[in-house]
Every structure is written in C-alpha cells, then in structure tokens.
C-alpha cells in the first residue's frame, strides 16, 4: 500500500524493539469482548486509476453548473474562481498544516489569517473579526449566543423571517436547550417592517437578526433597524449570505450593526454541493472577549520582528472548557485563505466592478421578467443579484419545464414561505451571460 511505508523488515525490527512477538500483541489492552472478530467488510483497495474512474462515474451523474444555465442562488453563489486560487491553496505548506499552534513555523498561516480578519473588517465595516466559523448559518447561531451572553439577563432574540431559512433553523437548533426565546418578525414588501420591530423591542430583547441582503435578495433598512434596536440597548446582528453585495451597498458596520456574520463562499470557494463554505464573524471592540473561535493577533518575537500568533485563547474550549464562548475547534482555515486570495486579487476596484456587473445583470433580468406575461415582481425593494418573481404557472412545473432545456431557473421559496408558493428566487452572477438570460426569458415566456 503506497501510503504505508513499512517494509516487512521494518515491522520485524520495530516489534523487536518494542519487545513483542507480533502485531496482535499491540492490542493486548483491548478486552476480547471489545474486539471485532471479522475483517472489515469493504471492497479491497483500488488502484488510483480505478478510484478516479469510479468517482468520475458518480460525478457524471450530477448537474454541473458549467453544463447548465443555472440561476440558483439562495445561499450558494456561482461566481467565477480565478486559477490563481487553486494554484496557491494547493501549496501543501498551507493545506497540510494544522491549526497554527506553533507560531514560529506557522507564520504563513498566521499572517494569512490576520489579513483575512482585516479584510473582513474592511468589508463589513467592523472593528474585529475572527479566523472563521463553519458557515454563515452556524456563525449566525453563535452570534445569537454571543448577544444573549453579552446582554446578561435578556433572553429574547428577534429573528426576521426574511433571514435565510437555514440560518433560522440553525439558530433554533443551537438555542434548543438554552434559555433563549426566539421571536419571528414578519415580512412586508420583501423586507422587515420597522413598526413590527418597534412593537417587539423591549428590555427583554438581546438582539435582532436580519439578513443583508436577505433571503429574497432584498436590501433591508439596516440603519433604521439599528436605530430602533439600539434604543433598547440590544444588538443588531446582520447576516450576509452574499457578501459580494458589500462591495456595492453600504457596509453593515457603517449602518450601525453590532455583529456581522455571514458566509464567504462567494469569494473563491467552489459550490461543491454547498460545503465547505466559510463563516465569518465580525464585532465591535466591546465584544472582543466574547468572540467565538480563533483569533490571530500581532506581536513581536524575541528578536523584535513583527509576528503573528493565536491569541485571547482564554475564550476558547481548550482553555476555558465548559465556560468557553463556543465549542468550535477546527474552523475553515483553508477556505479563509481562499477568500483572502480572492479578495486580494480583486482588490478595491475589482470587487466593486464585479458587484456592479452582478447588480446590472440581475436587475436587467428582473425588469425583463417583469414584462413577461404570467410573471410579476412581488417586492419593489432594491436587490443585489437575487430577486423573487411570482409565476402564474405552478413553480414546480415551471422548473421542470426549464430543466428540459438545461436551465435551472431558480429556487422555489414556497416551502419556506407559506403564502409565497408562486415565488421563484432567481440569482444572476457574472457567470450568467446575456445570452443565457435571453434563453431564460424565451424559455419562461414559452409556457403553453
């Protein structure tokens, strides 16, 4: 076996050094009634060529977005990934390393994360960000926990229904057995109505959680929400599933958010059927010691050279154990690196330009669809690169019909939003050419 370097001679010599007769004796500490008495019932190992052939067969049964016209978004975005990213993250010093516990030989990872933390701050307009969370949904759930912990006696959290359903569900799971009361905030014209928020806000509320853009692709009135939330000293948690929007729209930080979480998949991570994504988590200075997860800080070494190191570890499980701010240990280090490379490559200009393209195309398509017979726009609020249309044709039928033409028309939102059964969430990125959009329009119009 090519991954196992032991020759028979090696094994014999090693057993002799250990002072046992055979490999069996290595397991003498395991009681007989704990032993598996048969071989593992899995097929014998395959040659590399056969592994790839088998996997290729499975891969061929999937609908690659490069072979389809895909207008799917809803928490995972089909953006182009420059070749540079894979080239750089394939450097094994990065991806075969562990969490940088030994800073003297981990400065590459550490400086990379420090830069990631910085760019997340810049994008979100916040003071500090951690080294990553699993994904946007779990980051959002941890943000709720932070807010509740920070607010001490308060245990209510308002969750806007416009927040991505997976985020809402994950929050619910994380809070399941904790003393947290989750209260849903209804929806109006695709965003969160300020009046209802005002009604719900009181001294029991620790935080309000809102998407930006929200699940409908709409831009929520963040600064208005912030103003109201802050009147009761609660925290505004903003969740960003499509962070490219932050290159075009005002940052949550600028608008008054207290915590900004989200998923960085848009920035250079393959769709990969939804995982791994990468959660980000940014806060104001005041919440620094409540942050979950790893943090990299700047310091100096004995020679006075600038260096980076994992810091404020007293927040973390390996030091604080049951009192830790979170149980997270492994995070999404490699994904953070990919995001950083993506952001560095696009830079200030490129990210804005890319956001402009996404905006222009999506809004063009939105307009065009709205002129088609049988389609309407339920919401008038500004959007970024995603929007909801309602269709006269049943959404399931429409989707099926378009699949015949190799088009993935969008995400049906009816299951998550009773009352919006006719709604289709359509996403447009720079990967959807005008030609693709025109084909979509023809196909949509083609209803018999």
């Amino acid at each position, binding site marked *: 076996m090519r991954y196992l370097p032991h020759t028979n001679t090696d094994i014999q010599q090693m057993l002799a050094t250990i002072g046992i007769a055979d490999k069996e004796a290595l397991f003498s500490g395991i009681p007989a009634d704990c032993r598996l008495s048969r071989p593992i019932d899995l097929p014998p190992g395959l040659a590399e060529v056969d592994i790839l052939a088998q996997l290729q067969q499975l891969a061929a049964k999937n609908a690659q977005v490069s072979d389809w016209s895909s207008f799917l978004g809803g928490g995972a975005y089909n953006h182009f990934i420059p070749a540079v990213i894979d080239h750089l993250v394939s450097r094994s010093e990065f991806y075969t390393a562990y969490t940088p516990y030994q800073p003297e030989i981990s400065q590459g990872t550490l400086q990379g994360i420090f830069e990631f933390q910085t760019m997340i701050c810049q994008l979100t307009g916040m003071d500090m960000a951690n080294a990553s969370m699993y994904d946007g949904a779990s980051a959002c759930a941890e943000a709720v926990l932070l807010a509740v912990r920070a607010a001490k006696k308060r245990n209510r959290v308002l969750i806007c229904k416009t927040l991505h359903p997976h985020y809402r569900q994950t929050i619910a799971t994380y809070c399941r057995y904790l003393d947290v009361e989750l209260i849903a905030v209804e929806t109006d014209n695709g965003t969160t109505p300020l009046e209802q928020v005002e009604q719900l806000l009181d001294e029991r509320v620790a935080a309000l959680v809102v998407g930006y853009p929200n699940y409908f692709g709409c831009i929520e009135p963040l600064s208005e929400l912030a103003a109201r939330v802050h009147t009761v000293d609660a925290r505004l948690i903003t969740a960003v599933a499509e962070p490219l929007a932050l290159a075009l729209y005002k940052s949550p930080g600028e608008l008054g958010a207290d915590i900004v979480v989200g998923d960085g998949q848009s920035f250079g991570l393959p769709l990969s059927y939804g995982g791994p994504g990468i959660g980000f988590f940014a806060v104001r200075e005041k919440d620094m010691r409540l942050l979950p997860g790893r943090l990299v800080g700047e310091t100096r070494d004995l020679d006075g050279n600038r260096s980076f190191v994992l810091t404020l570890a007293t927040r973390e499980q390996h030091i604080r154990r049951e009192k830790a701010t979170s149980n997270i*240990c492994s995070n999404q280090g490699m994904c953070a690196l990919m995001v950083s490379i993506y952001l560095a490559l696009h830079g200030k200009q490129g990210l804005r330009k890319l956001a402009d393209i996404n905006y222009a195309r999506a809004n063009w398509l939105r307009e065009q669809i709205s002129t088609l017979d049988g389609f309407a726009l339920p919401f008038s609020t500004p959007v970024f690169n995603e929007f909801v249309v309602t269709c006269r044709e049943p959404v399931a039928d429409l989707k099926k019909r378009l699949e015949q033409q190799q088009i993935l028309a969008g995400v049906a939102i009816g299951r998550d939003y009773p009352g919006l059964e006719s709604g289709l969430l359509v996403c447009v990125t720079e990967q959807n050419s005008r030609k693709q959009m025109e084909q979509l329009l023809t196909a949509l119009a083609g209803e018999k």
Partner: protein
Amino acid sequence: MIPTDSRGLVLDEPLLFEQSQPGRIGYSLPDTEVPQSAPPADLLRDDITDFPELSEVDVIRHYTRLSTWNYGVDSGFYPLGSCTMKYNPKVNEVAARLPGFAEIHPQTPEALNQGALELMYRLEQALTEVSGFPAISLQPAAGAQGELTGMLMIRAWHEARGSKRTKVIIPDTAHGTNPATASLCGYEVMPVSSTGILGRDAVAAVMSDEVAALMITNPNTLGLFEADIRAICDLVHEQGGLVYCDGANLNALMGISRPGDLGIDVMHFNLHKTFSTPHGGGGPGAGPVGVAEKLIPFLPLPVIIKEGDDYHFDYERPQSIGRVKSFYGHFGILVRAYSYILAMGGNGLKKATELAVLNANYIRARLEGAYALPFKERSLHEVVFSEENLGGGCRTLDVAKRLIDYGFHPPTIYFPLVVAGALMIEPTETESKQTLDDFCDAMLAIAAEAEQDPDKLKQAPTRARRRRLDEVTAARKPRLRWLP
C-alpha cells in the same frame, strides 16, 4: 539522519495592505453585457477603505512566500497528538476538484445530483461498517459540531421521554470541546478523574438519575483503550443515561474494535483525522456522527435515504434536532474521505490502524526512560510523556521548540491536562521507521542537551522563521487587524 545544517533563503513579505498601490489591479472580469445600473445613491457604499490593490504577480508572490514560512505534513514529520496528521493523498485533491463534484449547486433538484447523493450514501455505509453504528449523519462540519449534534440528540432523546436530566459526566482527560459542548446543550459538567483508564467504579460513584450522559473518548487522550467501556456503558444505560464517544482517536481502532458494538450510543468521526482529509491550516474538517438505533429519529436534518435506485434528502423527521448548518455536510471533504476509503479498502484500513499503533509503541519503546511515561498501559495510536525527567530546568515547551530546530513539528503539548507537561506524540501510520528513528534520535539528543546545555532548549527555536513570540503582549494589547 538528523537535518542539522538546514538553512536557506526564506524571503520576507509585508502585509497585503502595505504593498497596495492605488489603481493597481489583479482582476480580470467579463463585460457587463447589459446597461449599467446602480442602486439608490443613499444605499451605495464608498470605496472599501484601505482594501488592497495588487497585481496578479503581487498576489502570487505574497502567498507563495507566506507558504514557505509554514510547516505541513508534506514538509516533514508532524506528530501532533490527537490530530492524526497522516499523509493527505493527492488523488483525493483531484477527486474533490472533479467538475461534477466541485461545480454542483446545493439548490439543484435532488434528481439531478444523484451521483453526489450516492457518494454520500456509500460513505455513510462505509462509516457504518467501520464503526458499527447503524446510521450516520454526514452533516456536522467538524468534530466539535459532531459533538454538539450528538449531545443535542441525547438531550432530545431524554426530552422525548420526558426526562429532564441536567448533568453530563466528563473524565478529566477529555478534550476541551467535550465540556464546551455539554454546556452548549444546557448541561452542567461533572468532571470525573481517571487514573489513565476510566474505571467502572469511578463512573458508578458519580452516576445518578440527574446524569443525562457520559462523554468518553476511546481510546482516550492518553492513547489508552478504555478497557471498562462495556461495563461503563451498561452502568450508564442501567441508570437511564446515554454514552457519547468522542471518536477523534478512531485511527487506533479500525478493523480492531467497533465503538458501535460496545454500547456507545453516539460518536463523531473526524474525517480530517482518521480518513486523511487535509487539515487545511485549521480546517475545514468534517465531523459525521454515528448513532445507535434509538437515536435515529433525532438525527439532524436532512437525512439521506435511498428509495429504490433513487437517493433523496428526507426533511420530514419530526423528532429531529433540526439543522446545524446550511445545506448538507462538507461535501468537498466527504469526497476526499470516500476516495481514501476506496484506496485503502477494508484491509487497508485495518493495516493503517495496526501500523499507527506499531509506530506509537515504537516511539514509546525508544524514548521511555529518557522521557517519563506516566501511564504504563499498552499504548495505542499515541503515547504521552511527561516533563518530569527533563534536566537543566527545562520544560515541555522547551523540548517542543527545540524539536523545531531539528526540523520536526512538535507534538501536542500540555494536553491532556492530567499529565504534568504532557508531550503527546501521535506518529500515524504513514511515517516510516526511518522517520521515527530520526525523530527519536532528535528527542534523545534533546534530552541530553537539557542536561548538558539547557540553553539550547530555552533559546530554541533559533532556526525557524521566528524566535519565540511575546504572547503575553499579544493578549494584553490585542491587535487583531491591520490599521494604517
């Protein structure tokens, strides 16, 4: 041979922001193709302040140079205990990048991604066979989230039976994620101290009808098999509790013992340990859970099911604890793990375990004496020494740093907490006897240096990119981002 003269050109590299030049570009974007448009002006953001502006070659050199300051498994021996730093096969990387895996969208109708679902289904079956658990969820993102998922299921199981237990027993050898997880589930942690191996009696002494579960790690973090495990499970079960197993150390057991056969109710796997997926400088991992029959209704959403020849996600599971993250699992990591299982086969997995244990015991045999061994039971995949025998006033930290000068990644240190100055060495099976010998030679040389020339250790490392860091200032005056 010990690489004592290693040296070479390692280049400096400032921060991205320090290199940025206004107007420099590294992107390459298609045309807009439709009329330009923009959101209302009051919503528009200005420039992203201080965001970097670089060319493609700037970016390439930046990360290329940064990488050279790092040490990975591909650089050399990385005996980081509890982390199972085995070789990450390159074919797995190719597999995960196949366009039919990397370019598929999670919102695609299931009928159009049958290959992905089938792969995950097959992976679940393989994990079932290795672990003995009848059902698996691939959903959790990493080990700690697997723990959370598992403990939430335990709590849901109790609640479904109307039982309101409040405590979880956790041995003092446990990883920090165990107590942190118990807290996240609203449980109070009852530590129990073990003397290497957790005795049934020790558990009996604290077990009660307030205890919802025991969280145990097997083999434990000392590298020892919990020999009383069956009796302990029986005991906990008799008193109405459940048993969670931290499966981080499964690399010691493949083909040898199946946790699911021993009475464990739920266990997480770390695919990034046992199943060779890369650690990525911190992640992403994948932390599937395996459960006993009684916990199946509580599995997180969704669950993959096979109907006829078709694979689906099942969301209609009223007793489920719900969703712990978006979509389903770290698919890209799952592909790698499945590719590994295909390469190894059943026999290969068992052989991996045998050789991992052989390697750990070989290191133990070579170093025992020079380094103090607090627990004498037969080691499995890792061996834990203490700092007790060190001369010259040297501590574990000094040994670790000195190992860097010898060209090795240090072991895990100061964990588990029950050992004074623990040096936790897990070689894994992918290391050859030669590598182990080089490492043991270095360890013995360091032990001798500690006696004769302790400054060599205390000043170490001197050959790395950086010398020891001022971690105190880092924590006292945190600088967590660059500012101009």
